[in-house]
C-alpha cells in the first residue's frame, strides 16, 4: 500500500502526461469520426451504389475487425503503400475509423426511431427532403442516439490504451515503460488503471444520466 502511494507520487506527473495524450486521442477521434459516422449512417441505405458500397465497406470492417488490427494496419501496413504516418496520426486514423463505423450504426438506429408521423407531417407541410432531414430527422435522431454515443465514447477512451502497441506515448505505454525500468509493475499498473477508472466511471454515470433525462417523457 505504501509502495502504491510512493509510486503514485513519484510517477504521477508522467502518468498524468500520458493520460493527457489518451484524452487528446479520444477527442480527436471523436471529432473526426462522428461527422464521418453521420455521413455513413446515410450511406449504408443510400440509393447511389458507389456511396453505399463504400459506406458498407467502412462500417462493416470498422465494426467487424478488432481495433488492434486497424491500429496495426495503419502503423505497420500503410508504409507498404508509401504512406508513413507518425504513431499518433496512424492511431488517430484507426480510431477515427472505429468511431465512424460504430457511430454510423448508432446514429442510424436513432434516426430510424424517429416516429414516421414526424416525416409524414413534414411532407404534408411541403418541406423539402433536405429541410426534413435537417430540421426534423437529424436533430431528433441524434438526441435519441446521444446516450449510446456517450457510452461508445467511454469505450473509445478505453480503446486508446491499445494505441500503446503502435508506440503512442499515452497512459498505458508510460505505465509500461516505468514498469519495465523499475520492475514496480503491479503498483504502476494499478495507478494507471485507477486513472482510467477515474475518467470512465463518472463518464458512464453521465451517459446513464443522459439516458434517464432524455427518456423522461417516453
Amino acid at each position: 500500500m505504501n509502495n502504491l502511494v510512493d509510486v503514485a507520487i513519484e510517477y504521477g506527473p508522467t502518468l498524468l502526461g500520458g493520460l493527457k495524450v489518451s484524452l487528446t486521442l479520444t477527442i480527436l477521434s471523436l471529432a473526426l469520426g462522428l461527422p464521418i459516422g453521420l455521413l455513413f449512417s446515410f450511406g449504408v441505405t443510400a440509393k447511389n451504389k458507389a456511396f453505399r458500397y463504400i459506406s458498407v465497406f467502412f462500417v462493416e470492417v470498422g465494426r467487424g475487425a478488432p481495433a488492434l488490427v486497424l491500429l496495426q494496419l495503419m502503423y505497420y501496413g500503410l508504409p507498404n503503400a508509401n504512406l508513413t504516418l507518425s504513431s499518433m496520426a496512424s492511431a488517430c486514423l484507426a480510431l477515427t475509423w472505429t468511431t465512424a463505423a460504430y457511430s454510423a450504426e448508432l446514429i442510424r438506429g436513432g434516426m430510424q426511431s424517429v416516429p414516421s408521423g414526424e416525416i409524414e407531417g413534414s411532407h404534408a407541410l411541403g418541406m423539402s427532403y433536405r429541410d426534413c432531414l435537417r430540421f426534423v430527422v437529424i436533430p431528433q435522431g441524434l438526441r435519441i442516439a446521444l446516450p449510446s454515443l456517450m457510452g461508445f465514447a467511454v469505450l473509445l477512451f478505453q480503446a486508446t490504451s491499445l494505441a500503446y502497441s503502435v508506440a503512442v506515448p499515452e497512459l498505458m505505454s508510460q505505465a509500461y515503460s516505468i514498469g519495465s525500468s523499475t520492475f514496480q509493475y503491479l503498483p504502476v499498473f494499478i495507478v494507471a488503471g485507477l486513472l482510467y477508472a477515474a475518467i470512465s466511471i463518472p463518464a458512464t454515470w453521465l451517459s446513464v444520466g443522459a439516458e434517464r433525462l432524455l427518456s423522461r417523457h417516453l
Partner: protein
Amino acid sequence: MEMLKAIAIGLPLTVLVTILALMIGTVVALPIVAGLRSRNRLIWLMSRGLVDLLRGIPPVVWLFMLYYGISIGAVRLSALQAGVLGLGVVAAAYLAEIFRGAISAVPKGQWEASSALGFHRATVWTRIVGPQTARAAIPAYTTFAIGLLKDSSIASTIGVSEIVFMSSQYARQSGSGILVFFVAAGIYILLSVPLGLLSRHLDVKMRKAVAR
C-alpha cells in the same frame, strides 16, 4: 496462400481464448448478479463497485497487471493464463449487467404467480424465471460474445500467439503489411458471422419454447 497459412496458425488460440474467457465470465457473473440483486446494502455496494471497476479499467491494463504484476514466489502466470483470466474477469462484469437486465425483464406477475402456487425458490429459478431470463439474455449475450472474440486480440499484447500476433509477426518478416491485416480483419468478420446466425437461431427456438 502462404500468408493465410501463417495467420491461420493463430486461429485455434483466438477461439480458445474467446471460449475460455466466455466460460469464466459466465460462471463468475452468477455470484456477481446475486450481489447486484442483494437487499443487503453492503453486499450490493461491493458488487456494484466491483462491476464498475472491472468495466472502468481497459482490458489491457488487467492483462498487464496479471501478466507482469502478479507473481507467487517465482511462479508467474503464463501469457495464455493471464489472457484468459483477465478477459474472463472483465467479461464477468459485463455479463453480470446483461443477466441483471434480463432477470428484471421477467414480468413481476411470474414471480407473484409462482409464490401464489407455492413453488419452491429453486423451482422458480429452474422452471419459471430461469428459462425466461435465458431467452431475454440471448441476444445481448451473443453480441457480447462477438465483441469478446474481437477483444481476444488484446491477448496478443502479452504474447499469446493468436491471429493478430501471428499477422503482425508475418507482416514484419514479409513486408506486405496492408494485405496481412486486411486478411486478419476478414477472418474476424467471417468468424463473427456464424455466431450471429447461431444467435438468431437460438432466439427463434427460445421464442417458440418460452411463450411470452
